[in-house]
C-alpha cells in the first residue's frame, strides 16, 4: 500500500528552506562576493590616492605577473586539502628544493637544463610520494609528516646548494615562465590554466566529487566503493608534481634560486588558500576563490608599497585582511544558513 503523500503538517518544518527570503539571499551573495567587492574598493582607493603609479599597465603586470610561485603552491595545497588532509606544510619546501635542483644540476653539474627540470619534477614527485606513503599507508599524522618533510627538504636544498644562492640559468630557458603574451608573462597563464583545470576537476568530474567525499567522510566514501587511499595518495603525489613544476618555473623566472627562501612562501600560501574559503564558495576550499585571493592580496600589498608605507604595514594588512575576511564570511554564512 502507499502512504498518502504530503501530509499537511509534515512540511511545515522546512518553510525556511523552501522560500529563500531577501535577507538570506543578501547573506549568501554577501559572503560570496564580499572579498571581490573589497578588492574593487581597494583598486578605487589606490587609484584615487596614487593615480600616477597605481593606474598604470605596470601595476597590472606586477600584480598578475608576479604570483606564479604562489599560484602553484596554493594549487598543490588545495590538492591535499580537498581530500581532507588539512595542513600540508611541506609544499613550500618541495617547491624550494625543486627550484634549486634545476640550477644546481644545470649550472654546477652541467646537465642539460631540460633534463635538470625533469629531474626537479621527479624530486617533487618523490617528495609527494613519501608524504603520501607516510600519511596514507602508514597512518602518521599529516602535520607531523609534512612539517618534518618540510625541514628535511629544506636541509637537503641547503646541502646541495652549499647554503648559497645558485644562479646562471640560461635566459632562453627563462622563456618558459617569462615569455610575454598579451603583456603578461606566460607563467601567469600557466597558473591560470592549472587553477581552472583544478576547478574543473573538482566541480565537474566524478573524480572531483569523489575527492570531496573523501575529504568529507572517508568511511562513507570507502563504503561507496571509492578507493580512498588511492585518492589520498594521488592527491599527495599531484601536490608534489605541481610544486615541482612550480619550482622549475620559479627557477626559470629568476635564473636561479636561493635555497633559504622557501619558508617565506608558507604564510602567503596558507593565507591565500584560507582567504579563498571566503570567496565564491563560502566555507569551502575552492581553486577559483584561492586564485582571486592570491591576486587580491598582491593588489593590497602593491598598493601599500606604492603609497610608500613602512614594511610592517604589509604584515598588518595581510594578517588583518585574513582575519576580517574570513570572520565576516563566517558570520554572513551563519546568518544566511
Amino acid at each position, binding site marked *: 500500500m502507499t502512504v498518502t503523500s504530503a501530509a499537511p503538517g509534515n512540511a511545515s518544518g*522546512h518553510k*525556511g528552506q523552501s522560500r529563500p527570503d531577501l535577507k538570506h539571499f543578501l547573506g549568501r551573495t554577501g559572503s560570496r562576493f564580499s572579498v571581490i567587492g573589497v578588492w574593487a574598493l581597494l583598486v578605487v582607493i589606490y587609484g584615487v590616492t596614487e593615480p600616477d603609479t597605481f593606474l598604470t599597465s605596470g601595476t597590472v603586470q606586477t600584480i598578475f605577473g608576479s604570483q606564479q610561485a604562489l599560484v602553484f603552491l596554493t594549487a598543490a595545497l588545495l590538492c591535499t586539502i580537498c581530500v581532507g588532509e588539512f595542513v600540508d606544510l611541506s609544499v613550500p619546501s618541495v617547491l624550494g628544493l625543486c627550484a634549486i635542483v634545476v640550477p644546481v644540476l644545470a649550472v654546477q653539474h652541467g646537465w642539460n637544463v631540460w633534463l635538470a627540470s625533469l629531474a626537479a619534477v621527479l624530486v617533487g614527485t618523490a617528495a609527494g610520494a613519501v608524504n603520501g606513503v607516510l600519511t596514507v599507508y602508514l597512518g602518521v599524522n599529516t602535520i607531523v609528516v609534512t612539517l618534518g618533510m618540510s625541514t628535511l627538504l629544506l636541509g637537503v636544498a641547503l646541502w646541495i646548494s652549499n647554503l648559497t644562492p645558485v644562479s646562471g640559468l640560461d635566459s632562453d630557458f627563462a622563456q618558459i615562465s617569462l615569455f610575454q603574451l598579451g603583456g603578461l608573462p606566460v607563467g601567469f597563464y600557466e597558473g591560470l590554466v592549472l587553477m581552472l583545470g583544478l576547478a574543473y576537476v573538482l566541480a565537474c568530474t566524478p*573524480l572531483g566529487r569523489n575527492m570531496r*567525499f573523501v575529504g568529507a*567522510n572517508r568511511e562513507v566514501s570507502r563504503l561507496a*566503493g571509492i578507493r580512498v587511499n588511492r585518492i589520498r595518495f594521488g592527491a599527495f603525489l599531484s601536490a608534489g608534481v605541481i610544486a615541482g613544476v612550480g619550482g622549475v618555473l620559479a627557477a626559470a623566472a629568476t635564473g636561479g634560486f636561493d635555497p633559504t627562501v622557501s619558508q617565506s612562501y608558507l604564510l602567503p600560501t596558507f593565507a591565500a588558500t584560507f582567504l579563498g574559503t571566503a570567496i565564491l564558495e563560502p566555507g569551502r576550499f575552492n581553486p577559483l576563490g584561492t586564485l582571486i585571493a592570491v591576486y587580491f592580496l598582491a593588489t593590497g600589498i602593491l598598493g601599500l608599497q606604492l603609497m610608500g608605507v613602512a614594511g610592517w604595514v604589509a604584515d598588518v594588512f595581510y594578517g588583518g585582511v585574513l582575519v576580517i575576511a574570513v570572520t565576516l564570511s563566517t558570520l554572513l554564512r551563519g546568518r544566511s544558513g
Partner: protein
Amino acid sequence: MTGSVPRLPGDGEPRLRVEAVSKTFGSNRALREVELDVVPGEIHGLVGQNGSGKSTLAKVLTGYHGPDPGGRVFVDGAPLRLPVRPLEARARGLTVVHQSLGLVNDRTVVENLRLGRFRARRMSRRIHWREERDAARAALERLGLDVPLEVKVGALNEEDRATVAIARALQDAQDGTGVIIFDESTRSLTRESLEHFYKLLDSVVATGTSVLLITHRLEEVLDATDRVTVLRDGVSVECGLPTKGLSEADLVRTLLGRELLGLAREKHTAPAETGQPVRIEGLSGQVARDVDVSVAPGEIVGVTGIAGSGHDEVPYLVSGVRKATAGRMWLGGKELALSKMDAAAAIAAGVALVPEGREREGLALEMTVAENVLLADRSCRRGAMAPRRRRAERALVGQWIERLDVRPPAGDLPAGKLSGGNQQKVLLAKWLATNPDLLVLHEPTQAVDVGARHAIVAAVRAAADAGCAVLVSSSDENELSLLCDRVVIFRDGAAQPDPLDHPSADDIVQAIYSGGKRRLRA
C-alpha cells in the same frame, strides 16, 4: 492548548512541568508553546514523527539549547531558570540520555560515566580516582552490566554503549526525586536487554523518580508507559494521554494527524523466479560461522537473532566492507570469494549496502543530498575525468527524492540538515539508485517514524519487485515482519535451519527466544 491536562494522580506538584516552551531555529519553529507534565513515579512517553521536536525539547531541558523567551519550566513545583544551566538542571534531578548517546569512543568507561561529574579534592584539586571508580561500578552494577572500567568505550558494542549512557544518567537519580529523560536510548537494545531495562525502570519509578521516554517504537510506548504526550510539528497535541486501553492505531492517528493506510503487512509474494538466486555459502566472519543463505531475485530475506548471534555481521561481510574469513557468493552467474572482496569489488558486482551507522558510514553530512544520492551511482558516469552529466543527475536525484518522499525535497541542502528519518531515506536512495542485484540492509528503519517507515518499506518492496534480491539484517521484529518473505534466525553465529515464512512479529520473537511474546513491562 489542544491537549487535555488530566488530573494528576496522587499528591500536589508534578515532578516536571513544561509550560509554553518554544524554540526557533532561524525561521524554523521547532517547538510551539509545548506543554508537558510528568508526575512523580510514572513512565511518561513522548512520541512524535521525525523532526517533531522531541530531541529539541530534551535539549532545552538540559540547557543545550536556550528556548525562546516566554516559556516556563518547573521541577517539583519550583521554577527552573531559563535558559537552563546544565549543572543546575542536574542538581535538580533532570538528566538526559541523548539520542546520540554522548560518549567519547577513545575514552574509558569510567571516564565516560563520570564525565562532567568529576570531583576534586579540596587542596590538591586532584581527582579521587578510587571514588570515581566505585561510583562507576555501582552505576553499572545497577544495570547488571559487567564491563571492565578501563576499556575504551569505542571497543564496546552498540548495546553496551547504550547501557553505559543509561548508567550515566541513572547514577544521578536519587531515589524518589528527579526525572530521567531517555531520547531513543532503547533503539539499539535487544529484546532481552529491553526487558531488563524496563525492569530497572520499574524499580526506579517505584521509588518516585519519574521517567520521560522518547521512542519511535509504539509497542514500547503502549506496553511500558503510563501516559503519553504526543508532539506534532512542535505542538503538543496530546498531553498525558493515559495509555491504558489505547490502541496502536489510535496512537498513530494522533501522532500523524491522519489515518495511516495499510499498516498491516499485506502478503507480499515474490514474483515468479526470473533469474538465478543469489547464493551465499560457507560464510564465516568474527562470529558468523559457515552460513548458507540464498535470496532469489524479488525476494526479501531477513536475518535476525539475539545480540552477538552474528546476524548483524552478515551485511558487512557480504558487501566486502569487512573481510570474511571464508565464504563464496554466486551473484549474477559469477562466483565471488568473499574473503578477498573489497567494497569497490562488491559494488562493481552489484551489491549495495545500507549500513546502520548513518553518521559514521552512511552519509557525508556536509555534502548535499544530491551529492550523496549520486555518490555510489555509476549510471551517469563516463569516466573519472569526463564532465558529469548534470541534467541526468538532477533528474535522477529528483526522481528519488520524490519516490522516497524526502522532506524538504531540496537536493542542494546539506544532508546534515535533514532530520534523522529523512537522512535514512537519502541513504536508501543512494543505494537504490545504483540498481543493485543484491540490496543488503542493516536496521533500515531504525529511529524512523511510522510514516517514514512506510515510505522506506515501500521503496524496498518496489526494488524487490523490480528484480532485486534483498537481504535485511535487523533486531526489530516489527520491521522484519513488515518487510520479509522469509526470516532466518541466527544462534551463536550459525544460521538455524527452517527459516520462517512470512512470519508475524510474534512468530519472530518466539523463534528467537523460544517463548511467547510478553509485555515489556508487567
